[in-house]
């Protein structure tokens, strides 16, 4: 009984903590992903995937999120081909990030295909959102 109670309290605390820092756009998307059967989401999993390398037949042969965005979310990145500067991903240094659900989904679509060679699952997207918003 005590165990269940503790779990409930901890879960409740985690959920509150999560939504306290989440933007309305992130909250809305996490709900969509949960409704699709995904979750619970993990920032650690998102971070792990961020630097995971994927092989491709065309250059760059090894791709990860960090190829363009670097492995520090607070840093500016660079487009692999055009070298155009990409502003930091972390909302704490770039307030425009994670504020628009359409924008977020658009970039998931494009960048998951470029990096993984396929679309990301609801689980992966949720994990990424938690990692990026930290």
């Amino acid at each position, binding site marked *: 009984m005590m165990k269940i109670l503790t779990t409930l309290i901890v879960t409740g605390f985690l959920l509150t903590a999560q939504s306290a820092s989440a933007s309305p756009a992130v909250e809305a998307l996490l709900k969509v992903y949960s409704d699709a059967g995904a979750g619970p989401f993990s920032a650690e999993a998102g971070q792990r995937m961020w630097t995971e390398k994927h092989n491709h037949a065309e250059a760059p042969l090894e791709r990860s999120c960090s190829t363009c965005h670097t492995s520090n979310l607070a840093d500016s990145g660079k487009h692999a081909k055009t070298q155009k500067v990409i502003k930091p991903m972390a909302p704490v240094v770039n307030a425009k990030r994670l504020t628009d659900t359409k924008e977020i989904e*658009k970039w998931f*679509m494009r960048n998951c295909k470029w990096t993984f060679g396929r679309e990301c699952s609801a689980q992966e997207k949720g994990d990424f959102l938690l990692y990026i918003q930290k």
Partner: protein
Amino acid sequence: MKTYQKILGVVAITASTTGLLYSATVYGDDDDHEGGFGWFKQSKLDVAPVENAVYRAECGSCHFAYQPGLLPEKSWRKMMTGLEDHFGDNAELSPEVNKNILDYLVANSADKSDYKRSKKIAGSLKQDEVPLRISDTVYFKRKHNEIPARYVADNKDVGSYSKCAACHTRAEQGSYNEHEVKIPGVGRWED
């Protein structure tokens, strides 16, 4: 002569000189030498500057926002139907945004524009030619054929002809005047 007349005279001379210099700077064409006072008749810049916020945001977030007047309508139509493989990148857009941007590109494409270089680019293409790269057009090649590889492809600060603004200091404004060219690590380019 009264003082105010003198001042007026100086002002008039300065103004007309400045005007002439301005015309020559803005409209003077690089090496076309089309005879006469070509620059004097020119009323439009090289290509129309980008004025569509959606286009600038969607396309300009990954690369230089090429002016629509740099390619003909047929090129833009082909480009916008193949965004899932956009020079090796996925640049997919929602159907609504895609249409919005395509409409803008088509309305301002090289063959619909009366800007100087747009007309030349459109005029340099064969009927069945549908270039997806501006650097594949005959006009572009002719304008860049004297530039050695070490200035562009082998120049770490340039790397490719796709980066217009790396050398054309006023490319953003739609100006590709030769006198405004500054090649990183090399300096001004005059032929």
